[in-house]
């Protein structure tokens, strides 16, 4: 069975997520890779080292910016012309849009949020945690190509030392695919200290009510000797710097202790912190999804609880 893996790149480097998925694809059979961009020919060789037998390179100025739609045209053509049975992606903002649009284009099944896949009865069966991870669904496909989008960080890249045959592909793009244009790209607006190595993270979300209340989170973090994290919603709202953001489009962290204050637990946030040792959540909404994956969930007003907890921690730690 031949599996095509989309390899995303950024600033001249192939991203780890895709390389990890490539290693998984190589375990299932023939693994091919697709590298789509402008001036990317040099990246092809790397894909062989991580398990690709063949790499399709589409090098075109229309693929300069990391936008999904022209990449749909490229992947659709590669899949159709090469008898590809499976197409795998590692979750990212770009890959999710690409995978879903490719599903529509090819009328192909897409399963997402996957944490594993195996060959069974001539087909594939994938593990898909659902409903805030309260159930694990075994998902399959009723036709080919089978499209699969894996949670980020699911598989570690394995360097096998092979080499890939390179095939350069030229693609004709649909009119609508190149209408969206990148005006400004990857402009990181603020910077600050890293939170990836912290043993304790106290994170704040929209439930704080306003940027001024981040002091509550900062004080507790300080008392615990930890760092401060934030959700995408509050970072986008300008309450706290991007460098502290935990989640899909921010940092992935796994501290010993993660205290979530006023965080609902959207999937975007969860994937960045769910592997923390112990998770404590404080939220006033008893139905907040974060309680489904917390070790201790506290339904209550964080504005009352957090300052009191800070005082208690201070005295307990002396």
């Amino acid at each position, binding site marked *: 069975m031949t599996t095509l893996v989309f390899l995303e790149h950024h600033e001249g480097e192939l991203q780890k997520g895709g390389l990890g998925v490539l290693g998984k694809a190589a375990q299932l059979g023939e693994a091919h890779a697709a590298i789509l961009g402008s001036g990317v020919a040099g990246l092809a060789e790397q894909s062989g080292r991580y398990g690709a037998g063949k790499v399709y390179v589409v090098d075109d100025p229309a693929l300069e910016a990391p936008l999904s739609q022209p990449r*749909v045209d490229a992947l659709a053509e590669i899949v159709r012309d090469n008898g590809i049975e499976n197409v795998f992606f590692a979750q990212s903002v770009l890959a999710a849009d690409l995978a879903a649009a490719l599903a*529509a284009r090819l009328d192909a099944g*897409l399963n997402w949020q996957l944490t594993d896949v195996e060959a069974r009865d001539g087909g594939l069966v994938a593990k898909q945690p659902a409903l805030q991870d*309260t159930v694990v*669904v*075994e*998902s399959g496909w009723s036709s080919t190509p089978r499209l699969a989008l894996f949670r980020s960080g699911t598989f570690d890249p394995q360097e096998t030392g092979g080499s890939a045959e390179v095939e350069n592909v030229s693609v004709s793009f649909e009119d609508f695919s190149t209408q969206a244009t990148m005006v400004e790209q990857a402009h990181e607006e603020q910077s600050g200290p890293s939170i990836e190595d912290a043993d304790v993270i106290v994170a704040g979300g929209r439930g704080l009510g306003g940027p001024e209340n981040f002091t509550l989170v900062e004080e507790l973090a300080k008392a615990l000797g930890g760092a401060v994290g934030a959700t995408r919603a509050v970072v986008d709202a300008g309450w706290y710097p991007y460098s502290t953001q935990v989640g899909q489009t921010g940092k992935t962290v796994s501290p010993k202790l993660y205290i979530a204050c006023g965080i609902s637990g959207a999937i975007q946030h969860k994937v960045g912190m769910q592997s923390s040792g112990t998770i404590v959540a404080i939220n006033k909404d008893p139905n907040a999804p974060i309680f489904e994956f917390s070790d201790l969930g*506290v339904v209550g007003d964080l504005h009352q609880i957090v300052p009191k907890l800070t005082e208690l921690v201070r005295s307990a730690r002396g």
Partner: protein
Amino acid sequence: MKIAVCVKQVPEGPGKIDPGSKRLDRSGAGALNHFDANAVEAALRIKEQNTSATDSTEVVLVSLGPEKALDAMRKALAMGADRALLISDESAAGSDLVATSYALAKALERESADLVLFGQQGSDSDGAVLWAAVADRLRRPLISQVAELTLDGGKVRGKRQTEFGYDVIEAPLPAVIAVSDAINEPRYPSLKGIMGAKKKPQETVSLGDLGVEAERAGEAGSKTTVVALGAPPPRGDSRKLEDDGNAAEQILAFLQEKRLL
């Protein structure tokens, strides 16, 4: 100008899967997917900013679901949307991404809106991909995860966050936009809005009305299957408590017990 907002009814409270059909159990009370409220709010703000006397803005809600999904749509009507279009058909049950995007695209083609808006995810299924499939079927440009949206003449501009920082993307209308939950704080419906919602046009159409072939809908039109359901890996003993005034003490005791202090 016409804005179509795609909305979804989700089960109220924590969802569960019906072991018989292996589908999400939608028999209980439903609510408007709260991520969709951000898309409705974004549409209403565009409508309110448009002061043109000759070309007012119409906000149309489009959904696929059971008849009672109209209840959830009425909440968005109460917020200020102008009318609702619900695709409701028994043979649409069990539709996956391919089948759902096909039926939605058919309805959106009929509406021919200048702007199609989506929320960032379904709160029930963790699904965050539908818009890209719909944009491809409509053959329209797409901007997703938009945290700041501006409309200027025939162009739409979106600022969004990716793994590497912020992007600003521009596209000509008609376009498909998926907004993030950071874009705005959705308004609460006013009493007047709630009373008025019942009188706003609410149309229900079948798949046949839209020209969706039976073999492209529901399980027949879907390309993914549920093989089995299993319990998740256990996370150890999880505790939940309501604050009775002693929550801080209880958290401290928990941290001490786990030797985390």
